[in-house]
């Protein structure tokens, strides 16, 4: 590894000191570095612009959580004042870090608010999975368009494989906050990529097993699926597959 020269070390120290000052709004620490004639109030304008941008990004990133709090803007402001943004952190990474910070610093978060946080975290996970498996994400979304064409054929055609949406994760909801009227908590909900958005879907136990089974065995024919899910009637399983295809959770190819 190359050893830094004295000039490089000094430059590094200067940039580190300036970055620390900028991220903390420390005008006194910036002042000695300013060129002659520069006004410190313009540095303050720079700070304000930065803090606003970070706050705005977090507010946009976490609309779902925002809806569950009366004072989310204040919480964001407290978070951005207390913490620094990690180098190259995306809005998602900062959002996830903020949720961690909230859980440490706000012990009175209600169970309803926790449900919103759980789904928000699941959305972050979906985004991370989509980034890692981009090609699989695009390939799956491309074959979903064939759903209508294959829906009448997959029952008997062993060459048609049922594919599970690879971009999904589970979240557990413990209150009615985000559930429909006829759904009782606790519920495991699937959060998944649908086109360029994220959607959620709830399942009873057989449905959950169906998803986990497909995740385990990979693309399979309807006959193979039936073999693994003997507890479900043929017509019910057929109908379930069609429903999942319409939801964008499975695709045929």
């Amino acid at each position, binding site marked *: 590894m190359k050893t830094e020269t004295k000039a490089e070390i000094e430059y590094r120290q200067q940039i580190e000191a300036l970055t620390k000052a900028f991220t903390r709004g420390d005008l006194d620490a910036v002042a000695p570095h300013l060129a002659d004639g*520069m006004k410190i109030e*313009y*540095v303050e304008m720079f700070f304000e612009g930065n803090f606003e941008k970070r706050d705005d990004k977090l507010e946009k990133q976490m609309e779902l959580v925002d809806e569950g709090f009366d004072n989310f803007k204040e919480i964001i402001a407290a978070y951005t004042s207390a913490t620094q*943004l990690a180098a*190259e952190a995306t809005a998602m990474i900062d959002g996830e870090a903020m949720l961690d910070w909230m859980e440490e610093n706000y012990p009175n978060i209600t169970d309803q608010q926790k449900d919103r946080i759980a789904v928000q975290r699941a959305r972050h996970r979906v985004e991370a999975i989509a980034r890692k498996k981009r090609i699989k994400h695009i390939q799956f979304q491309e074959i979903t368009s064939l759903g209508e064409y294959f829906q009448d054929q997959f029952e008997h055609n062993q060459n048609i494989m049922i594919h599970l949406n690879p971009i999904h994760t589970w979240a557990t909801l413990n209150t009615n906050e985000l559930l429909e009227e006829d759904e009782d908590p606790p519920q495991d909900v699937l959060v998944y990529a649908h086109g360029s958005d994220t959607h959620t879907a709830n399942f009873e136990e057989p449905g959950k097993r169906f998803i986990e089974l497909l995740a385990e065995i990979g693309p399979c024919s309807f006959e193979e699926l039936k073999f693994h899910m003997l507890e479900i009637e043929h017509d019910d399983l057929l109908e379930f597959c069609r429903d999942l295809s319409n939801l964008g959770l499975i695709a045929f190819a």
Partner: protein
Amino acid sequence: MLPHIGYALREQNRYILDDPSITGVELTFERADDPLRVDKYIGDLDIDYVSVHALKLSVGSPDLPSIEYLEALRSIAVENGAHSISDHLGFTRSGKNGEEIGHFAPVPMTQAALDTCCRNIEYIMRYFDPLEFYIENVAYLFALEGTIDEADFLGKLLSRTGSGWVLDVTNVYANARNFNFDGYEFIEKVMPFAKNVQFHLAGGFYDEKAKMYIDSHSHPIPDGVWDLYRHSLKQGGDKINAIFIERDQNFPDENGWRSEAAMVKQIAEEVLGTSATQR
């Protein structure tokens, strides 16, 4: 030859990008980089010249940018058929595993900063080859203490690295107005060292309280920027590959979008010659 002319792509102007004046488009990386997106950010647009504009290469940082960021940038560029990638002459973080400022700060105009920026840019250019790389002069609210004049710094950087230059005409206009130097001379001094050039044009506003012109990308291009643009065209000539108009808020109606692009093209034709054919 006439440069490619177009807009920094926003959802608000996507519908006018089929305008006959428009043959280029600039994609902002942070907008295009959506892991859930299934289609190309540029969509079905048939555009001759595409550039990807980043915010976080942070060429003024003591450490090289991460491979992850470079690869993500390249992926977006390749996916959208881009010819080039650009970023700003500034720093957004202290270094690897450091802290992120959230916006780029101007570098101190010193020899150490120049050496660091050159090292980083050379690395970036090797990584993105054969895609071209351009570095943009920034608008600043303050300058850090330095030993080199800004135009000299930029000239030396372009000369040493062979990087292209995004001449942000509005940034030169704003800085010249706010810090009392001659923007025309600035451009004359730097241009000889730029191998290839792209322009940015935008409109801002004068903040009466702060007594500063702010490059907010929120208004039509003002007369002062049009004049500097003409001067820049004369200085750059055949080196100019593309001209992008930036607008981020307070969006115009359809006529506003189209007429501004048409004006950019008209002036380019006047200065570079009406017989100039588009690249």
